[in-house]
């Protein structure tokens, strides 16, 4: 019962932190909290996520498309995905900070490296799973390779590719929480500094992060739905009926 009461208490305190300004726990009349204060941290986290995700797509998708189209390199593409899951993010972030420095660019590179495996693997697997008869039909119509990729394989592979993009985006956004160790102020600041922001700040940070992550997930799920060709949607609907 006490636990429940303290949980409710934490939540009300957190919402107060999100919507109203207050003095920092460290005193000195320093104001913290409130939407205007919180927004720049959230924006930085979204920005670095976007940049990192863009990089991962720019590198991972072409490789996955080409390898998937020609059907070679499965060990690399899928193995890379499996190994990528084993990479400890915080080590990559600190290593890059030590080697090339801190700041948006470097953090984006570190996060992009983390987002690359799901994009690459899902793109490759998606291309391999495209119905070969569709590809044959396209070739039969005289399309060249790049046309086959763009006009036939890619649309059919798009839903699975988007699933990989969603995974990458959520992973990147979640990991961006630690960016304040290396020069970027993100929502992680609130979570890791109860000394300044109090327990309300910690819970508030966690809530905002979870909500934004949910919004990103929902937005990308919407994109996934949009890029699913109508034929696939109908086929799936009839299969599960």
């Amino acid at each position, binding site marked *: 019962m006490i636990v429940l009461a303290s949980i409710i208490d*934490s939540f009300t305190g957190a919402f107060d932190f999100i919507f109203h300004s207050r003095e920092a726990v460290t005193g000195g009349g320093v104001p913290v909290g409130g939407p205007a204060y919180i927004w720049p941290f959230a924006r930085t986290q979204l920005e670095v996520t976007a940049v990192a995700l863009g990089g991962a797509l720019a590198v991972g998708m072409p490789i996955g498309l080409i390898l998937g189209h020609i059907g070679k390199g499965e060990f690399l593409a899928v193995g890379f995905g499996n190994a990528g899951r*084993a990479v*400890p993010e915080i080590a990559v972030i600190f290593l890059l900070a*030590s080697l090339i420095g801190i700041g948006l660019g470097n953090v984006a590179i570190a996060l992009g490296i983390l987002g690359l495996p799901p994009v690459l693997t899902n793109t490759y697997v998606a291309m391999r799973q495209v119905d070969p008869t569709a590809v044959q039909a396209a070739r039969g119509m005289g399309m060249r390779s790049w046309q086959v990729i763009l006009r036939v394989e890619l649309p059919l592979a798009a839903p699975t590719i988007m699933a990989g993009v969603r995974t990458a985006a959520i992973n990147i956004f979640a990991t961006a929480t630690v960016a304040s160790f290396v020069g970027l102020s993100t929502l*992680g600041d609130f979570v*890791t500094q109860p000394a300044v922001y109090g327990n309300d700040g910690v819970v508030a940070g966690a809530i905002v992060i979870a909500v934004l992550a*949910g919004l990103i997930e929902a937005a990308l799920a919407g994109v996934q739905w949009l890029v699913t060709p109508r034929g696939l949607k109908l086929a799936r609907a009839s299969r599960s009926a």
Partner: protein
Amino acid sequence: MTTLAAKSLLVADSANKCAPGLPADFCHHHETTGCVGGNGLFCADWAADNIDRYVGPFFRHLEIVAISVVAGFVVALALALLSHRHRTLIPPVLGATGVLYTIPSIAFFFLLLPITGFGLWTAVIPLAAYTLQIIYRNTIAGLANVPDDAKDAGRGMGMSERQLLWRVELPLATPEVVAGLRIAIVSTVAIATLAFLAGAGGLGDALYAQPSFNTNIIMVGVLTIGMALILDLMVVLAQRFAMPWQRARPR
């Protein structure tokens, strides 16, 4: 004068003389060039000499991963078996485990700190929670993929529903379940590097002790990835050993 101020802070300058106030037997020479002092990319000698630094954190890391994965597996399996019987449970459970997954690990650790304190459980609970979705989803999918004739044959032999589940459905679902388990193990090994923030120790502790020393960072990275790959391999081998007939599954 700035340079004078700088000199007064020195304990041992380049001529290896000791600062005033420092007893002679305390004065060591500190090499700021060379691999270790100069932070070269990887100092193999230092790594070889200092491997014992990583032993404690390595096994602690293994312990955290083992407890988290086992706990997550048990809970996810229980939920899956329940959902297999009552299929309406599937969407809400998938949703709930998905929500858990979107909470970043650091946030989860710091949220639990006031409740569970600084230590093992503050790390294990979130890590176990992250494994729920993948194991649950894969178990459900595996059970759903069991061919009907296998079940019919079982029923034909007079099996009860419970016997059917444990003797036919689950064994046939094993490949999917194990696939989910492998992903869960590998991801948990990686995320557990953050467990030091919750006070649970692990390889993250070793990393954070010298976070700008390249050799240290690389050692932690290599040990983490190595642990993940070895555990993954062990699971694959265990599966093949337990069920060799599934070796020949076409991809």
